[in-house]
């Protein structure tokens, strides 16, 4: 009876964070190396793992997130295997090697607690995008997991002065050294209700990459869980 399901057994652990399939993240937890994960993203765990919602460290750093509803991160500690997922979104695992990445808050799934991170508001854009675009900048040596609705694409900004424009709803992550600007298509017609639908974009320039998902659904599913 088990045979059709046997293929889905977890593979042996080879790294701290691994994909199980495309949509699931497997984290090998160990005492001493804690993990921050999105609240509500845990789908299963083996071993002894404790969860601390709204941890003080997060409260310090992510003060800006605090709009009365608590930080969307929980601290996980203990020993065992932890499985995380976000409503079937694709999971991308990144091993930061001293470099950094800026992640849209809704696309961040988990990251090592020892990484340096901070929350910043994307300048010039908060006025435009309804959800108020917050991003988390993470640097250091360790693991980060992102989610993406559909298989993402990575675009090189190429250096130079040319700008790459991204729909903020489809943006997942970008290199922190890129220059970010909000761009508004100033067209009279876009103001009278007949816009092209692409009135606001974010413009990136500099050397680095931008990660974009093939979906413009940026709602935070995990927050609706209440």
């Amino acid at each position, binding site marked *: 009876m088990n045979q059709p399901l046997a293929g889905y057994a977890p593979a042996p652990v080879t790294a701290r964070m691994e994909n199980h399939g495309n949509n699931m993240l497997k984290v090998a937890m160990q005492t001493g190396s804690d993990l921050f994960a999105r609240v509500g993203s845990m789908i299963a765990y083996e071993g002894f793992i404790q969860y601390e919602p709204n941890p003080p460290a997060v409260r310090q750093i992510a003060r800006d997130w605090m709009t009365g509803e608590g930080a969307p991160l929980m601290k996980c500690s203990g020993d065992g295997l932890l499985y995380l997922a976000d409503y079937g979104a694709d999971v991308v695992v990144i091993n930061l090697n001293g470099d950094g990445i800026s992640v849209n808050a809704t696309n961040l799934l988990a990251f090592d607690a020892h990484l340096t991170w901070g929350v910043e508001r994307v300048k010039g854009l908060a006025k435009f995008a309804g959800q108020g675009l917050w991003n988390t900048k993470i640097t250091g040596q360790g693991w980060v997991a992102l989610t993406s609705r559909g298989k993402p*694409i990575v675009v090189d900004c190429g250096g130079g002065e040319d700008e790459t424009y991204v729909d903020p709803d489809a943006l997942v992550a970008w290199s922190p050294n890129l220059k970010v600007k909000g761009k508004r298509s100033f067209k009279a017609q876009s103001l009278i209700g007949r816009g092209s639908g692409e009135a606001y974009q974010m413009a990136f320039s500099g050397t680095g990459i931008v990660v974009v998902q093939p979906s413009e659904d940026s709602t935070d599913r995990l927050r609706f869980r209440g």
Partner: protein
Amino acid sequence: MAREFQRGHKAKISDLTAGTDLYVGVQITGPGLTFDISCFGLDAEERLSDDRYFVFFNQPKSPEESIQLLGAQAGDSESFRVTLDRIPPQIHKLAFTATLDGAGQMSQIAPGYVRIVAGGEEVARYSFNGSEFTTERAVMLGDFYLKDVWRFAAVGQGFDGGLEALLKNFGGEVAEEETPEPQQSQPAPPQSGAAPGFAPPAFGAPAAPAPAPAPQPVPQGYAPPPVPVPSVHAAPTIIAPMTPPGPGTVPPPGPVPAPYGQPQAPYGQQAPGQSPPPPPGYAQPQAPHAPGPPPGYGQPTPPPGYGQPPAPPGYGQQPPAFGQVPGQAAAYGVPSGAPQGAGVSAALEKFKETPTGQRWTQQNKKLVRVDLGIGGQPVLARQGSMVLYQGKVDFGYKGAGFAGRIVGNATGQEMQLMRCTGQGQVFLAEHSTNLHPVELQGDAICVSAENVLAFDESLQYEVRRIEGHGIPGGALFTMQFQGTGTIVVKTHGEPVVLPVTPTTFADCNAVVAWSAAAQVIVSSQVRMRRNAYPGDTGESVNLQFRAAPGNFIVVQPYEV
């Protein structure tokens, strides 16, 4: 997505891929059967006038190495590398054949395929199974043939007589040395232990047995055969891996390129730095020589066939200029010395942009890139479908036209389009739906209006209305496209393409597109489906299609 071929289908290679350096993989297996897979290089009379162009396990390459036998890998029972522009002019046809070695007949084979991989992407696949054959013992699976340009044909025809009949057909005589080959190969399966080890994971070819670091990068460079130096008498390699690779070992095709090549778009537009011989597929995914983030659009995904991660013997490191598109000149070719080291870029390597010089490029199943600089005409896209663009692109409002307005008035929902003009690349996607660029060359297709994502402005289209009692909104709106250009159709999930038969019905909510020659009849209340989904009135409308054979409909697994 690879283009699927049926028996008898033909296509220009240039429509499938821009490359001329092709990987041809054949998978043919059967319980207890062994096969010899070979390639015949035939002259204009379809004769094997030159024995040296009979490429098989005993003669793994043609004299100038335009045809090479690579052995089993990546789920293929046998694979070839074909460099079309190096094939000498007297060779007009390459026939890929499989002959049974030992007892058995072709009707016993398991489902198999012939596939063409170029640039690390599978571009064509002809699948076959035992039901297409009877007592044949030798089959011609597919041909590359020269008719003005190189073309590919899915043949699937066989001979009862086995290899000898095949040779006779090609005008070769069965020389004494050649006939014993089946016998010779059979008792010699000594490599069977080694072969499965490397066969299953396409990329698992360990670095250790890196085949003889040949300074000259041609044959051994990227074929990871278990034997270090494929000596001519290392024949057994052919049998050993033939059975083990199960269907599960076929590597995923990775981000899919636009299967519909654009013959009009001249490939000269690609950067001059990209010389034809090494197509992108042969590049090493991790490109250890690349400083930091790989230059430019790096190598998108590990190519299915040519895995061999580290230690590349100098073959196919793409010059940084690779993948430049004209509009952007050098900007993307510059190796960015960004401070992000191996970490981020290595993790994201597989999601890199797919480079091609075509107007429409499918980046992955759900994302399409259109290069407005190629072709120079605007694109109409559903509003809000742009996720990213580079270059100078202008987005303007585009009404759905007069007919569309009528539709809009009727339904209260006008199809909202935007016109993208300028120079640059626009990436289009919507709600993680699967996208399918369909290239029209003078033919016509009807697409349900909800499933249109974008199309070339050069296409003519009209909105049609299929009325029927019970259709939500009063009628089903379809857009009929005609002309020359590409239209991107979106589907929720993997669609199915059905041939139109006298009894072809489809749910009006699930049908996506159909060939314009098919006639649609609304057959209301054929079936009662109460509460199939919330808000349904309880009766569903089916559409019946009537058409001459050869027409098709496309249906998605999603009914809202």
